């Protein structure tokens, strides 16, 4: 059997195809889903959000520049820079109000040489240059020109202190003042970086502020040490200032990818497992089918004894088939045995009838002649010899009668009758012989049980069995005749405690003409079994040498007045 023709092989291939189809389908769905997800995370919505973020940052800087315009163009502002000049209280108050913002450390005033000469603390004022003694310098900070505004910085967070940016403009010149200096807003760096944050609930897109000195700042204002892989350039806010971003969909897609790999692994494991299971199944199935084929071949070859081994614990389809095979073989064997037996009986019956006809008439003539001779014979000794001849003629007649009974056996008309009737008749008939042998017969059991059979044949069968039992018993032995119910049958046990039988004898004891007695015909038990079978019953025999013998007869049970079939 090749895999192509094997049913198991076909199932295996079909299952693998189904698994592969399912995995392929799921992979396609996953790929489309993840593509859609990435597209949603990074598609046009992202561009709109980035543009919005850039607008937020730009607007913040634009507002600061507008604030700076007011200060830088105010004619009194140079007073903050000029040596020895007092700033009027109204002006000072204006500047204090301008500085009073949570995003401003303060307002710084520089002279023409870019030296910090004056400052007004803002709401967030802390650290240098507001705290005297703390070093502060703008040296080395990148400078970006944006119109007439100069963006200085950023000064990135350092030693745990926050970063800052200075947005500065030149002051309006006063008459007689060559370079009035400049005014700068000292802005929290975090005020800018916080606005770089993208409103991305999924958290897949990370934005950074790219500064002119190459720093990449997180929204919390911290410089990033390592540039992330896949960093993309975003919109520019100012020359050199840009919002860069990365799409880090890993934490969303990773679980999906893990699930996908898990699915592949599971599918592969399932496929391998499936092949392994089907392979084992195929081997087992083939072995067991081979047994079936062997059994069928054996049966076909005439070996009616061949039976398949079936384990009782399992009851799968092959076992059912094997049981069916064995059942079929049993029935076939029974049918063959019955056919053979029928044929044997038919041949034997024809033979016996022929023999009886040919023997019985001459025997009658001989007997009449012997009787006539006996009556006229004066010699006592010769008369005794003639009597012996007559006895032998009677014995030959009995043999011939048995042969006729055996050969012409047929079921009599059945009726439903109480078993105790048969018991009583049989024991009465054998009473002379039992008394002669000093053996007691004890009938027991439910005497009201009724059997459906021919009453005479039942009585004859019981008589045969009782005679066998009497002849096997010793003086004072008891023969037990017992009736009981067993399913749809009445069970009749005839038990003696005589010499019993060896197994070899027991096997053949029901065969016709087999006998262990010198004066036996070997037909009694054969006829009994035949009569029991003719009445729909069965006869079985158990015997132990030296222990005794029990012959068990099963006959259909019935209830008077009711159809017999109801009780079968």
């Amino acid at each position, binding site marked *: 059997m090749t895999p192509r023709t094997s049913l198991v092989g076909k199932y295996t291939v079909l299952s693998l195809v189904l698994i592969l189809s399912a995995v392929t389908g799921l992979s396609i769905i996953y790929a489309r889903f993840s593509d859609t997800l990435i597209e949603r995370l990074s598609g046009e919505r992202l561009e709109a959000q980035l543009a919005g973020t850039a607008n937020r940052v730009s607007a913040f800087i634009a507002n600061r520049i507008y604030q700076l315009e007011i200060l830088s163009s105010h004619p009194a502002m140079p007073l903050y820079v000029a040596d020895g000049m007092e700033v009027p209280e109204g002006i000072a108050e204006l500047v204090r109000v301008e500085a009073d913002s*949570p995003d401003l450390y303060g307002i710084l005033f520089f002279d023409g040489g870019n030296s910090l000469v004056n400052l007004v*603390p803002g709401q967030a004022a802390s650290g240098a240059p507001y705290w005297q003694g703390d070093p502060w310098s703008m040296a080395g900070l990148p400078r970006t020109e944006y119109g007439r505004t100069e963006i200085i910085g950023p000064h990135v967070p350092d030693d745990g202190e*926050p970063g800052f940016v200075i947005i500065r403009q030149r002051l309006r010149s006063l008459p007689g003042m060559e370079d009035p200096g400049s005014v700068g807003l000292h802005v929290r760096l975090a005020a800018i970086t916080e606005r770089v944050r993208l409103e991305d609930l999924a958290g897949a897109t990370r934005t950074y502020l790219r500064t002119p000195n190459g720093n990449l700042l997180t929204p919390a204002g911290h410089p990033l040490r390592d540039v992330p892989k896949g960093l993309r350039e975003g919109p520019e806010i100012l020359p050199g200032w840009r919002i860069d971003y990365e799409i880090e969909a890993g934490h969303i897609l990773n679980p999906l990818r893990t699930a996908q790999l898990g699915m592949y692994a599971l599918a592969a494991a399932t496929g391998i497992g499936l092949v392994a299971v089907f392979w084992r199944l195929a081997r087992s199935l083939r072995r067991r089918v081979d047994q079936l084929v062997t059994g069928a071949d054996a049966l076909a070859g005439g070996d009616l004894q061949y039976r398949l081994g079936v384990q009782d614990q399992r009851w799968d389809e092959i076992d059912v088939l094997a049981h069916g095979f064995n059942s079929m073989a049993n029935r076939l064997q029974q049918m063959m045995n019955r056919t053979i037996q029928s044929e044997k009986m038919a041949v034997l019956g024809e033979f016996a009838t022929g023999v009886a006809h040919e023997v019985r008439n001459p025997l009658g003539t001989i007997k009449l002649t012997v009787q006539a001779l006996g009556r006229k014979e004066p010699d006592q000794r010769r008369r005794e010899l003639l009597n012996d001849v007559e006895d032998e003629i009677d014995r030959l007649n009995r043999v011939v009668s048995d042969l006729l009974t055996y050969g012409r056996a047929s079921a009599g008309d059945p009726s439903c009758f109480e078993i105790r009737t048969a018991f009583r008749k049989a024991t009465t008939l054998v009473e002379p012989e039992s008394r002669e042998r000093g053996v007691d017969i004890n009938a027991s059991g439910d005497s009201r049980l009724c059997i459906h059979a021919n009453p005479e044949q039942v009585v004859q069968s019981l008589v045969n069995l009782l005679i066998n039992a009497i002849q096997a018993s010793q003086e004072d032995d008891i023969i037990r005749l017992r009736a009981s119910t067993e399913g749809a049958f009445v069970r009749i046990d005839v038990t003696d405690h005589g010499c019993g039988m060896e197994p070899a004898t027991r096997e053949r004891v029901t065969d016709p003409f087999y006998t262990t007695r010198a004066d036996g015909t070997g037909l009694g038990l054969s006829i009994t079994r035949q009569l029991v079978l003719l009445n729909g019953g069965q006869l079985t025999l158990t015997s132990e040498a030296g222990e005794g013998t029990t012959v068990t007869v099963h006959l259909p049970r019935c209830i008077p007045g009711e159809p017999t079939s109801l009780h079968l």
Partner: protein
Amino acid sequence: MRRATCVALWTAATLLITQTPALGDFGARVELGADADAADGTVACMYPMTGRGATYGRDSIHGIQVALDRLAEEPGAPRLRVIIEDSRSKASFAVRMAEDFVQREGAEILCGIVSSGVGRAVSQFARDNETILVGTDHASSRLTLEEGHRHYFRVSSDTWYSHAAGARYLQEMQERTGWRTLAFLGPDYEYGRVAWRDLRTSLEQLGVDYEQAGTYWPRLYEPDYSLYIQALLESPPDILVTGLWGGDFNAFVQQARTTRLFEVMTVANFDAGGNYDTLVSFGALAPQGLILSARHHVNWPDTERNRHFVQAFHDKTGTYPSYAAVGAYTGIIAIARATSQAGTIGDTEAMIDALRGLELPLPTDPPGHTSYIDPETHQIVQAQAIGSPREDDAFPPARVLLGDWRVYEAESLKPSAAVLQRRRGPTADASP
């Protein structure tokens, strides 16, 4: 012209609101205590009455009322007139307000101020105008150390004391747990920056070995801390010390408790985190692992004086006091005691002499200690207690209160001479 308009508006507001207001319903200006004609002196206080700091202003005014009630019961105590106005947490506003208090209202003493940034600006005004400022709430230690001056006094614990105690707590905790990394999250202004410096200095002095895992500087009154919470979760430290206070801290906790933040790090707030209103905001269950303290606790110390103050405050307001109330209470009591010693509130030099070293038995004093104003720094010297939230409904509506206290004696927390020298510079005088 602009100044004239402003003054006119100021005067109009003063005329409109001159009566003691109903509790919890303060306007832009409140006057408490004696009438102007009968008063021995005028104290002008500035507190926020709007915005996130409004609860501090409200409790401060109640604290002043409790102090005035107590003084009223004492025969011979000076009769003080207390003017309170809304500083709006803005330095420009407060400086202008202080100027008018002194010049227009005749205030002899300035007091109050919650924000350290505002306090710093007004302190500079007080220095320039030689007017005494008694700080009751703002806590930047720079105001008594680097920028301390003769006319500035503070009667509530500052960032130095709270973070010196915090550093001791962290040192002891490191011996128990072996924590290694520490991050700081504080408002980006005077108070937050100084708190961080004070903590670092104290940890350094104690020789605590740790790794700095980041500093985060949201602005004052930041409405959304998700950005910083996310950054902390991405690189979580063992310990997060935060200098957020009031509504800022409450907002941070409410946002952070929706994340894993409290599971992955221990959060400590040594200066303001244990405030009563914060404990109320926790509800039935505080986030796990919090280490908190404040400048006053309703349940510590368990002294008659503290119980009396807390009960008096409750009787007056129907609620329990935040630490701002004790600061304001202490400020008025200190001014009254100094006035009694100086003879007149108008003698600024005598008042300064009286305030320096002034001993003040206060609700915040544990048995065996009496608060006093350090003559060197003009900073009140008080013990610090740090604890953890636990279920306790003794002061409703709070359902958790601090417990498991670690108490640090006041004297052990004072800045050393070396610290004073370093903070004030080599040429600075020993006293302001």
